């Protein structure tokens, strides 16, 4: 009640405000944002499913999609979700070495996945499937491209946190900074867990 009259330590003051729910503002906000993003990807996935057989001209799913490479990318992305948990664990324990090791691995996984997608896309273009070749191609590139953009943004985000961790700016009481990025990262993974079967596995069996 008399908080206004009390002297404040400026470092701790903005870390923990009173909240009505037992969850921090920023964590609630990222969950809210993720909920909103679900609708974004749901719409893109629906669009892909509608147009997956629209390939009267140019290649269709069976002609271009390769499962082995993408499976490795999927595995790497799945592992990265585990790695970021380990990194967060390190941050919460104040174990700098653990934090740096696992966070570096997470960033590497992000880079690997993005690189895999760049390789895959250029490969498709060389095989004669450009962005506008047919509607299958357009909706494929739009859906996986937007997921890839999310991966790229997440990797950039984690990389800035890696830099912070390197400079010792993520002590245990600031591990929330990493936790929020990790929540976003898990979401990006989960979306891929839906995209991978719908785009690669089901489309192959479909026609």
């Amino acid at each position, binding site marked *: 009640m008399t908080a206004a009259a009390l002297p404040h330590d400026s470092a701790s003051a903005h870390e923990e405000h009173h909240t009505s729910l037992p969850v921090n503002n920023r964590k609630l906000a990222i969950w809210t944002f993720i909920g909103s993003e679900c*609708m974004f990807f749901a719409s893109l996935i629906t669009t892909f499913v509608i147009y997956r057989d629209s390939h009267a001209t140019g290649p269709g799913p069976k002609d271009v999609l390769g499962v082995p490479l993408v499976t490795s990318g999927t595995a790497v992305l799945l592992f990265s979700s585990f790695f970021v948990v380990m990194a967060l664990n390190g941050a919460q324990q104040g174990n700098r070495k653990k934090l740096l090791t696992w966070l570096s691995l997470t960033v590497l996984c992000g880079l690997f996945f993005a690189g895999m997608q760049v390789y895959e896309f250029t490969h498709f273009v060389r095989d004669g499937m450009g962005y506008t070749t047919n509607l299958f191609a357009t909706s494929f590139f739009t859906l996986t491209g937007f997921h890839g953009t999310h991966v790229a943004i997440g990797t950039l985000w984690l990389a800035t946190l890696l830099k912070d961790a390197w400079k010792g700016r993520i002590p245990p009481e600031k591990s929330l900074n990493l936790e929020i990025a990790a929540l976003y990262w898990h979401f990006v993974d989960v979306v891929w867990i839906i995209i991978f079967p719908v785009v690669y596995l089901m489309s192959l069996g479909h026609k």
Partner: protein
Amino acid sequence: MATTVLEPAHATTAKRSVLVEWLTTVDHKRVGILYGASAFIFFLMGGIEAEIIRLQLMKPDNHLVSPEFYNQLFTMHGTTMIFLAVMPISAMFFNFFVPLLIGARDVAFPRLNAMSLWVFILGGLFINFSFLLNSAPNGGWFGYAPLSSREYSPGVNMDFWMLGLQILGIASLAAGVNFFTTILNMRAKGMTLMRMPMFVWSVLVTQVLVLLAFPVITVALILLMADRIYGASFFELKAAGDPMLWQHLFWVFGHPEVYILILPAFGIVSEILPVFSRKPLFGYSAMVFSMAFIAFLGFGVWSHHMFATGMGPLADSFFSLATMLIAIPTGVKIFNWIGTIWGGSLQFKTPLYFALGFIAMFIMGGLSGVMHAVAPADLQQTDSYFVVAHFHYVLFGGSIFALAAGAYYWWPKMFGRVLNETLGKTHFWLMLIGFNLTFFPMHFSGLLGMPRRIYTYPAGLGLGWLNLLSTVGALILGFSFLVFIYNIITTWRSGEPAPADPWGGATLEWSIPSPPQEWNFAVEPEVHEKDALWAMKRAAGVRMLPEPPRVSGQGIHLPSPSWWPLFTAIGLLVFMVGILVRGPVSHAFPFGLISAAGFAIAAFSIFKWSYEPPDHHTSHIAH
């Protein structure tokens, strides 16, 4: 509410110019005022567009404007009123009053809030800039593909629309995250969800709709952008694309959008009726649940906008029934409002006039809505002026009447002066008469067969006199807002200073000085009941609150002003401008240098923003 005597303030730090203060502000109240001021200017622009439309339709075979300009007028009128007027005027109230109503110092993310504001303003300017190039959007506010495709809409007109809406969507989503978090997490001690003021409930439900509906139109706009600028064919029939996909994506957004526009109006009226009836809101929990139910159903009825597209009898029946269901929770709300004023000791002040006007007009709009829900009847009414009458009764008779009620009700708190009552009531009567004279005849011109969106109509169809009535009504309606502006100006110059609690209010915002100090509450309030201020006054045995003292905010943490929200918004604008000029101008760059620059500005700003210290001690002297 006890007050704490605070230490005297230190001398203010380096004086910042007024302009810089407003450009860098993160105070939710200033953000709210900027939202309101810019949205009101856009509202006047949308109003002028409407007046020109009405003058063009005043008589048969009229040639006041060209058919091409007419298309631009009705597209921009719809786009402006929905995205640049009603939503942001509501956002003004969200910004200014949600923290005050829940007893908070600010919103959860003040700088994100400022970013929403600047993104909105720049997005609005971006769309309207098209007028200067004589290429305002001309494909309707619904942007139906393939009408909005490059083939049927060459030129940059629809590019402005589609990119502008993308910008505005970002503002809405950022605000959605912010207010959802603020309301769930920043409530005063003891303010459970079922003790929240009804307006806060309406904002919470609205934000859920924003968060779930806007991503869908974002995808629709991305697909349209792929078609128009990057040569894709999502909506091109000749390349196996499907225009129905546009309609589904658009209306999955578009129908909840209707509730995004009207739910805040429900909230405002639910605040005003109890205060001016001196009775608590009747059926509070029924009101809450019916609002949530309306929002839920709002997502299941989008296809009632598409009865005429040939979805088939099964789909038509389903969406018809689901649409009629919405009448039930809406009816619950209306009867609760009537229950609130029933037997109350009514204080006939301007806000009550507008709130009662809202109920009457909204009932009219709701009844014609039920008529549209009947799919076979809708096939007759669709694309006629009957539809125009219906949605203006809902969105003008509903939203605008309620927003005006809110403006008169909350003006004293926002600006420290009470708007003139006589002028306010004049405004009300002119608006009520003008509104009904404009839109009631449209039911008849629509049933007589006058289509929407037509540039003119021949004589001898019996439509001339109905249109003349509508035009006269529109001029009166327009004039009523000149009275409002005159009221604002005279009140500004010579209005009486407002006490903290001019209406005998029920909610927390009236417990602090008018206008509130930067830190809102000198002491954070604690709440034990609904209608928290009434409960406090009852406990103290008073009807009006004694004037609360103005205190120094020494020691209260407030967020620091920041340039980065503005710069982030500028980066986003530049990014979209790059996509816009890429279409016709420079196919050479795969991404566009301008867009790359915009992206760099936005990314740099967000980076700087993340490393900025979030708050500081105030050292303002109480003013």
